[in-house]
């Protein structure tokens, strides 16, 4: 062991592992394969790795696991692959790993933010609620930006994450969470009958506490060796899936457990296509929680200096990684479990300066062994302070009842106040914990889901009990699933046993002392902060937590919650269970957003729906707009045209020759059955019974409340078959709405609904030349005006493929909508286009479609109506069957407010200056001179430049609009007021003669 090398030969399990180079804050170091970043830094004698959140105090490693509150670093693979707040105790080392410290400036050693520590008397818990209020706007302008700069930990990445993530839905009979001794036993037993078992563990290898507990002997093997052979036996079984580096982070309803598997973060050169992490959503018939326990620190003055850590962590670094955390080590404990750490280190040749044991008369084999090794044991004493700045250099001890102080030089201090069972997942499952007064622990009490807890998380004491619980739970799960099989049980021949401990602050960090005895390291919450919260009236532990932020840091209180609770209980002089326990919430440890998103990014964020004509439209240079998930051709600019020019040309061309429009996205539903017409009568406001086969009708659908829900043209193909169209956006909800009524209100009707939106590609050919264009291509249908008038439908063939040909119009021109089976769509479109171009026609997009329909005063549901508009409001009263006694919405329409005068009604609006185009959404007032707030009487729903009318046109919903024909109203804009005249909805061909050619 050289000056900067704390790796002990002959210790740990990494043996002669391959050396690995890495850097921390720009300085190069060497570790070995199998190290964590923490063990590698400790092997190099580096303890200082971070700064705390509020006071910027120097911090080192507290733990060797996921409960770590202090050692958070940034891991930078490249400019885009930067992860903040990574726990160095979890991050596995790889060649070339680059880590940087956080929350410090300019450097970790010299951090300007540390002035906060000096000013800490001012920064008591919740101090910010009491100040920064003057002058009034100074909070947002002055104080808040400063506080924000000081807060936060790491730096958020600023480039898009180039990595991929994966997901798997999985099902199993038994999910075992945790691969320590208890989980291994449970999985071995549960796997025995061949049922599907998943065993997951957050660490790279199974083994759990056997990582550090090196005295155990199971079935004649060393405990660790047994765990590895048990793991191998499980891996060898077809019915068992072992997931390592996999954290069960959330326990959801009905035994769904969320796991996240880390796949590449430990690799120097991951496969470029390999996902970084995988989200598992596991649905298990039975869940066995073997989540272990977490050691707690001691709460005493200056317990946060680098070099002060949990005893079990030091043991893990020694027994697994072969690293000594110091050379002159002190121990401060209130239970037996710190003794083995001292013993192991001593045996490895490290000097143990002293054990300070708060207990008056510690006894038992571990104490005896320590004594026999010559370790000094100071019982009935406490640590009252520590020395050192960037690393602990001394501890000062004193009898706990007061008296002479003694300062002992040390370079590391191990501590243990006992163990907290990890009931996080149990509690997330909505099981209720119960407080065990004897052991001062919360343990699983009442179960809410089909799960069991085994081992340390269930309060089991000792390895034998732990294994027994594991096997028993595995067997019980099988039995309840209807299987009997018994695994042979391993026998524990030797193990350590300890229990007990203390909660809260130690004597010497007592109420009267102005000391920093940290409860929550990361958030800098001290024992006196908790006392202050109680003094200020915080009675509920939830209030204490929120007021002090205890347990709200990235470790979510894994080491701090019980201490905080005990201190609050002590001040309130109430038993701990009366104070309550804060709710455990998912996730158990932080989960990468990317893993939760997994496949749903880029093109998989949301489906992009394209019609069969999309490729053709793209080739023609169409600009597309998003309409729901669809991409629709918006307009087709020619060289040198802007949108305005293109739309004007398209509109003009449709009315002078013809245009082709992709109407494929409209929803289509085939309504089939002898009661089809009866069903239509109930779902639409219009009458349908008398509509002849081969004819079409414009239908309006309401919600039960009387407001317009959807509209569309409906063709009757035969007595028992309707071809219904819906709006593009409305297609799925209209189908659901129809199914709802059919199945639950009108189940007596013999009729079925089938979505055919995507069966048919739809080419609208609109304009005076439309008939000439399609005539050469259509077979078996007489498309003359006499044989096929406006609003009719025929079945036949076009270009040799079947078609449902509609004569209908959304432009006011003679028009057809050619429905052809979708795979044939592109070929038919191209054939029609060949004809169309002979007549000077053009393709037109949704914008021109909007203008053309507005010229005719046809509404767009969702634009000219907004869920508060009745058919009457929209001027569509004619479409409501007056003699009908029932349809969806009939009663809603009669409600007092829906028949009251003064409703907003859809009217045409002409700007007094015809060149001015109103803005859609602009508000309308009667008196433009009134002060703000103005009385608004309506708004502009649709507004366009109409090349065909040679002026702007608009539609709007206006209070009592039908009574205001010819009235001048005003549209006040930010910088001007626009006068408009109220007019009818139709701006072009008011008599509708062009429909018929």
């Amino acid at each position, binding site marked *: 062991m050289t000056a900067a090398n704390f790796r002990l030969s002959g210790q740990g399990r990494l043996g002669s592992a391959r050396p690995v180079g890495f850097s921390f804050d720009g300085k190069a170091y060497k570790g070995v394969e199998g190290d964590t970043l923490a063990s590698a830094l400790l092997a190099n004698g580096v303890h200082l790795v971070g700064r705390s959140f509020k006071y910027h105090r120097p911090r080192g490693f507290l733990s060797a696991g996921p409960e770590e509150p202090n050692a958070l670093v940034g891991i930078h693979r490249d400019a885009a692959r930067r992860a903040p707040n990574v726990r160095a105790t979890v991050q596995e080392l790889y060649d070339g790993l680059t880590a940087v410290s956080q929350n410090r400036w300019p450097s970790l050693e010299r951090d300007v933010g540390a002035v906060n520590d000096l000013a800490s008397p001012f920064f008591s818990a919740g101090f910010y609620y009491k100040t920064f209020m003057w002058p009034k706007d100074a909070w947002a302008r002055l104080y808040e930006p400063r506080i924000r700069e000081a807060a936060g930990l790491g730096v958020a990445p600023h480039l898009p994450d180039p990595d*991929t*993530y*994966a*997901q*798997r*839905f*999985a*099902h199993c009979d038994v999910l075992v969470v945790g691969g320590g001794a208890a989980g291994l036993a449970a999985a071995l037993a549960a796997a025995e009958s061949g049922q*599907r078992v998943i065993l997951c563990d957050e660490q790279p290898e199974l083994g759990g506490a056997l990582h550090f507990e090196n005295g155990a002997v199971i079935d004649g093997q060393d405990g660790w060796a047994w765990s590895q052979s048990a793991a191998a036996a499980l891996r060898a079984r077809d019915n068992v899936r072992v997931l390592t580096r996999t954290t069960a982070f959330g326990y959801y309803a009905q035994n769904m457990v969320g796991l996240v598997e880390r796949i590449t973060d430990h690799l120097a050169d991951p496969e470029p*296509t*390999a*996902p970084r992490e*995988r989200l598992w*959503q596991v*649905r298990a018939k039975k869940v066995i929680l073997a989540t272990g326990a977490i050691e707690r620190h001691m709460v005493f003055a200056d317990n946060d200096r680098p070099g002060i850590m949990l005893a079990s962590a030091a043991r893990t670094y020694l027994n697994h990684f072969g690293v000594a955390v110091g050379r002159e080590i002190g121990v401060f404990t209130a239970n037996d479990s710190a003794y083995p750490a001292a013993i192991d280190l001593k045996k490895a040749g490290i000097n143990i300066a002293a054990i300070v044991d708060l207990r008056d008369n510690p006894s038992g084999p571990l104490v005896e062994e320590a004594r026999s090794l010559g370790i000094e044991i100071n019982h009935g004493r406490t640590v009252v302070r520590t020395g050192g700045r960037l690393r602990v250099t001394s501890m000062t001890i004193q009898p706990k009842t007061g008296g002479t102080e003694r300062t002992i030089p040390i370079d590391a201090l191990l501590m243990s106040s006992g163990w907290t069972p990890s009931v996080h997942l149990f509690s997330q499952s909505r099981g209720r914990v119960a407080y065990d007064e004897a052991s001062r622990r919360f343990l699983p009490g009442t179960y809410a889901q089909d799960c069991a807890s085994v081992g340390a998380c269930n309060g089991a004491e000792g390895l034998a009990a732990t294994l027994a619980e594991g096997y028993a739970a595995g067997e019980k799960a099988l039995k309840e699933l209807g299987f009997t099989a018994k695994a042979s049980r391993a026998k524990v021949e030797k193990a350590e046993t300890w229990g007990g401990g203390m909660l809260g602050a130690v004597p010497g960090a007592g109420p009267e002392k102005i000391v920093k005895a940290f409860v929550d390291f990361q958030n800098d919450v001290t024992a006196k902060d908790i006392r202050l919260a109680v003094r200020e009236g915080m009675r509920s532990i939830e209030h204490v937590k929120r007021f002090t932020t205890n347990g709200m840091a990235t470790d979510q209180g894994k080491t701090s919650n019980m201490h905080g609770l005990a201190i609050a209980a002590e001040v309130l002089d109430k038993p701990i269970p009366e104070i309550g326990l804060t709710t455990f919430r998912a996730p158990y440890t932080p989960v990468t957003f990317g893993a939760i998103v*997994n*496949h*749903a990014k880029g*093109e*998989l964020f*949301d*489906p*992009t*729906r*394209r*019609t*069969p004509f999309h490729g053709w439209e793209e080739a023609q240079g169409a600009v597309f707009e998003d309409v729901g998930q*669809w991409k629709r051709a918006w307009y087709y600019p020619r060289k040198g045209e802007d949108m305005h020019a293109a739309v004007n040309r398209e509109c003009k061309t449709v009315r002078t020759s013809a245009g082709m429009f992709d109407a494929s996205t409209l929803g289509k539903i*085939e309504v*089939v*059955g*002898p009661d089809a017409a009866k069903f239509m009568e109930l779902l639409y406001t219009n009458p349908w019974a008398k509509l002849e086969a081969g004819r079409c009708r414009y239908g309006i659908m309401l919600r039960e409340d009387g407001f317009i829900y959807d509209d569309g043209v409906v063709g009757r193909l035969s007595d028992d078959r309707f071809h219904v169209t819906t709006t593009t956006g409305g297609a799925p909800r209209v189908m659901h709405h129809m199914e709802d009524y059919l199945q639950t209100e009108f189940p007596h009707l*013999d*009729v*079925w609904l*089938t*979505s*055919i*939106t*995507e*069966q*048919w590609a739809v080419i609208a050919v609109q304009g005076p030349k439309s008939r000439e264009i399609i005539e050469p291509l259509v077979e078996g249908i007489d498309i003359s005006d006499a044989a096929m008038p406006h609003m009719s439908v025929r079945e036949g063939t*076009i*270009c*040799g*493929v*079947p078609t449902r040909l509609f004569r209908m119009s959304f432009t006011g021109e003679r028009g057809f909508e050619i429905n*052809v*089976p*979708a*795979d*044939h*769509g*592109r*070929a*038919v479109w191209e*054939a029609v286009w060949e004809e169309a171009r002979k007549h000077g026609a053009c393709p037109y997009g949704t914008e021109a479609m909007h203008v053309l329909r507005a010229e005719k005063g046809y509404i767009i549901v969702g634009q000219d109506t907004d869920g508060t508009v009745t058919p009457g409001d929209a001027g569509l009263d004619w479409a409501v069957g007056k003699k009908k006694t029932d349809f969806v919405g009939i009663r809603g329409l009669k409600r007092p407010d829906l028949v009251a005068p003064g409703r907003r009604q859809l009217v045409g609006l002409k700007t007094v200056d015809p060149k001015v185009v109103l803005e859609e959404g602009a508000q309308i007032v009667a008196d433009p001179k009134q002060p703000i707030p103005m009385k608004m009487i309506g708004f502009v729903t649709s507004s366009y430049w109409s090349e065909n009318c040679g002026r702007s046109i608009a539609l709007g919903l206006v209070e009592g609009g039908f009574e205001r024909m010819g009235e001048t109203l005003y549209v006040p804009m930010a910088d001007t007021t626009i006068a408009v005249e109220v007019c009818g909805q139709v701006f072009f061909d008011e008599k509708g003669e062009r429909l018929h050619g």
Partner: protein
Amino acid sequence: MAEAATTAARRGMLDHRSDVINGVSLVPAAPAYRMSLRARPDDLVALGERLGLALPTRPKTSASAGERHALWLGPDEWLVLDLGGRDPMQDLAGLQVLHSAVDVSHRNTAVLVTGEKAADVINAGCPQDLSLQAFPVGACSRTVLGKIEIVLLRTGEDAFRVECWRSFAEYAFSYLADAARGV
């Protein structure tokens, strides 16, 4: 639909897309006849006779006769697939039995997913249990894949047919490909 007389060419949504990733093959299915059939229990025998197979009545099952398959989708709903060029709509033409038959041949597109990890790939986006016990060969179900609806048919221990509406086909294919890269 008389394919032979067709002059307008057919173009599928997934033409020219196919891939083999991590041993999983993703291939667009050939065009097929598809029919959405709705009927009541009393009329199934008559319909089955015309179609040449007994319509399955147990959930999540399908029936096959040669190149024709009937997939149970709901208690009164079947998806009839014909991969052999026989139009089931023609078979039911004129049948005077209460039912609804709607041609959806072009509405759907299918991706054939085969390979040892086929189920794992689909389970990247489909929340059903696809083990052989829960979803044996011949099992079928309407379900979801990521953000779309699919109809899943297991055609072999390591082979599935994933049907979806045609405008979702690109999403489905891309999803399966992304999933295959991640298994």
